[in-house]
C-alpha cells in the first residue's frame, strides 16, 4: 500500500479537519511506528491546512476553523520535525520566514493566519509573537538567515514601527538580503511603498501567493 494511503495518515488528516490536537499527535506517532517517512506525514498535514486555508479564503470556513486546524497541526509537528532531524534529512522549504507583530501592538490573529498558511504552503516559519522590537526582528533575521520578514501592525499608531525595522535592516547592512512583507489593518499599498517594504496584501491567502513571488518560488 502506498504510504499516503496508510490508515495512520488518514487519521492524521482527519485530526486536522476535526481540530483534534491529541489525535494528530497519536496519529503522527503511529505513522512513525509504522515506518512512514515523516516528510510524507508532514505533507499530509500541510495539504489539509492548505484545504482549510482555501475554504477560509472562499468564506466557507472561519477563523476558529483555521485556528483549530493550526492548533491540531501543532500537536504533531514537533514529533515529526524531531524525527526528520534524527534522520538527518533536510526538509525542503520554500524559504525561511521570520514573522511578528510590531512593538507596541498586541494583535496576533492576522499574523497567526498568515503564518499558518505560510507553513502550510511549505515555508519554514519562525514566529516571534507580538510586541516585537526592531532589535528582536533584526536578531532573528540574522540568526535564522531569513528569506522573508513578515510584519503585522493593526493600528495607525504602530505601523510606523515597520518603517523603523526596515531602517534598522539598512543600518545593519542586511536589507538587501531579506524581502520585507508588511500587513495589518492600518497598512496600505501606499504605506508599503512609502516605507520601502517589498510587499503588502490585505488578505492572508493573498499574502501566501505574494510570499512565494517575493522569494522567487512562483
Amino acid at each position, binding site marked *: 500500500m502506498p504510504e499516503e494511503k496508510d490508515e495512520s495518515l488518514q487519521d492524521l488528516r482527519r485530526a486536522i479537519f476535526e481540530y483534534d490536537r491529541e489525535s494528530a499527535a497519536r496519529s503522527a506517532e503511529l505513522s512513525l511506528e509504522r515506518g512512514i517517512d515523516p516528510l510524507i506525514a508532514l505533507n499530509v498535514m500541510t495539504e489539509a491546512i492548505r484545504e482549510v486555508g482555501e475554504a477560509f479564503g472562499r468564506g466557507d470556513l472561519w*477563523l476558529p476553523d483555521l*485556528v483549530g486546524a493550526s492548533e491540531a497541526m501543532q500537536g504533531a509537528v514537533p514529533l515529526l520535525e524531531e524525527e526528520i532531524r534524527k534522520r538527518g534529512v533536510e526538509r525542503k522549504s520554500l524559504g525561511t520566514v521570520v514573522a511578528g507583530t510590531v512593538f507596541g501592538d498586541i494583535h496576533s490573529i492576522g499574523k497567526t493566519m498568515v503564518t499558518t498558511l505560510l507553513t502550510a504552503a511549505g515555508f519554514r516559519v519562525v514566529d516571534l509573537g507580538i510586541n516585537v522590537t526592531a532589535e528582536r526582528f533584526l536578531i532573528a533575521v540574522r540568526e535564522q538567515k531569513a528569506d522573508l520578514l513578515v510584519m503585522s501592525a493593526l493600528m495607525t499608531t504602530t505601523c510606523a514601527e515597520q518603517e523603523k525595522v526596515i531602517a534598522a535592516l539598512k543600518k545593519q547592512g542586511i536589507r538587501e538580503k531579506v524581502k520585507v512583507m508588511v500587513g495589518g489593518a*492600518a497598512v496600505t499599498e501606499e504605506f508599503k511603498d512609502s516605507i520601502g517594504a517589498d510587499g503588502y496584501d490585505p488578505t492572508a491567502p493573498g499574502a501566501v501567493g505574494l510570499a512565494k513571488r517575493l522569494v522567487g518560488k512562483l
Partner: protein
Amino acid sequence: MVRSKSCLGKLERINSTLSHREADRVPVSDFFWGSFLERWREELGLPADTDIYRYYDLDWIVTIPNMDPHIKRFEVLGQNDEEVVVRTGFEAVIRKKFRAPMPEYVEFDTNTIDKMKAFRFDDPWDDRRYLRRGDNQVAGVGDSFIRDLPPWTETVKFLYPEFPVYGSVCEGHESLWRIIGMENVLLWIGLYPDEVGKFVDRIYEFVLGITEAQIKAADGLLDGMVIWGDVAYTRDLLFSPDYWRKYFKPGVKAIVDLCHKNSLPVIYHGCGNVQRIFEDYIEIGVDAYNPLEAKAGLDVVDLRRKYGHRIGFCGNMDVMAWADSSLDELEKIVLTKLNAAKGGGYIFQSDHSVPSNVSGKNYDYVVNLLRQHGTYPLDLGEYDIPEIF
C-alpha cells in the same frame, strides 16, 4: 440637576439625529488616544488640562462603569518606571508599557474549558460598581493606566450639565475574550462550540444585569447606551454568522430592548467588517452603528445608499486620511461624507478613535469644517450626491 442651554441643544441634536430628523447641525464627537490629545494641546498651544470635549463643545460623551466580573483592586504583579503588570477583575494579567499605546494581555487565568465552565460572576447590582471608587479593567487599562477611578455615578453627574451622557456595556464577545483570551475564543468556538455558547449565555445574564443596574444607579441621568461589541476584523466576522446569531445576537437584542424600554437609544460599537450581519443589527433595533472602519472597506455614503434610514451611522472618518491628507483633500472627504447626514441619522466621528498621527491642525480644521458646512439645510456644493437623501 440643571443642564446648560448648550447641553439641551446637544441633546436635541443627538436625539433628532438618531430619530432621522435633521437637527440644527450634524453632531460631532469622538474617542481620542491620549497621545493625540498631548499633540493637539501642544500644537494648538493649549494648556495641559484642556478638555477637548469642552473646547469643541462636542455633542456626546460615553462613560464606563465597573464591568469586571470580579470586583477587586488590581493586583500589582510588577512595576517600574516603564511598565506595570496587573491582574484585573477579569482574572487577566496585563502588561501596560507606559510609552506603548496598547496594553499587552500576558495571560488569562481562565485558560481551560473546565475553568471557563466554573467561572463565576460577582453581582452586577453590587453598588461598588457604580457608587464607589475603585479599579476596573475596561476604563483603567487601555491607552492609559488609571487606578482608583472615581465613583461612576459621580462621573455621570459631573458630565451631565454639559453633555449628553451615555452609559456603556460590553456585550458577549467583548466580555468573553477578556476572560479567556482571543486565541481561546477562536480555538474553543471551533472545539467546544456549545460549551462556549452556554458560557456566553451566562455572560449575557451578567451584562444584562450590568445594563439594568447602571440605568438604575444613574437615576435618570443617562441619555443613551453604548454597547461595546467587536465581533469582526478588517475582512470579515471573527466567527460564522450562524454562530453569532445563535449565541450572541439574542443577548444583544435583549440589551437593546432593555435600553429602549428605558427610553435610551443605543449606539453599537463594533470594529471591522460586519456587513454580513448588518441587517441583523437593524432588525434588533440598534439606533446607530459605530465606528464604521474605513480600513474595513466601509463607507458611510455607500451604507446610506444601501440601508437608507433604517439605521443611524456614527463614525467612518478615515483617520489615515485625516492624518495624511491636505486641507483641500480633507474638505472633499468631509463634505462627501456629509451626504450621509441628509435627513439626519449621521453623527460625524473618526472611524475608530483619533490617534497621534492626526495633527492638531488637521483635527481642528475638520471640526471647523463641520461647523461651517454641517448646518442644516446642508449645502455640499460640488460634493453633493443627489441620489442620497
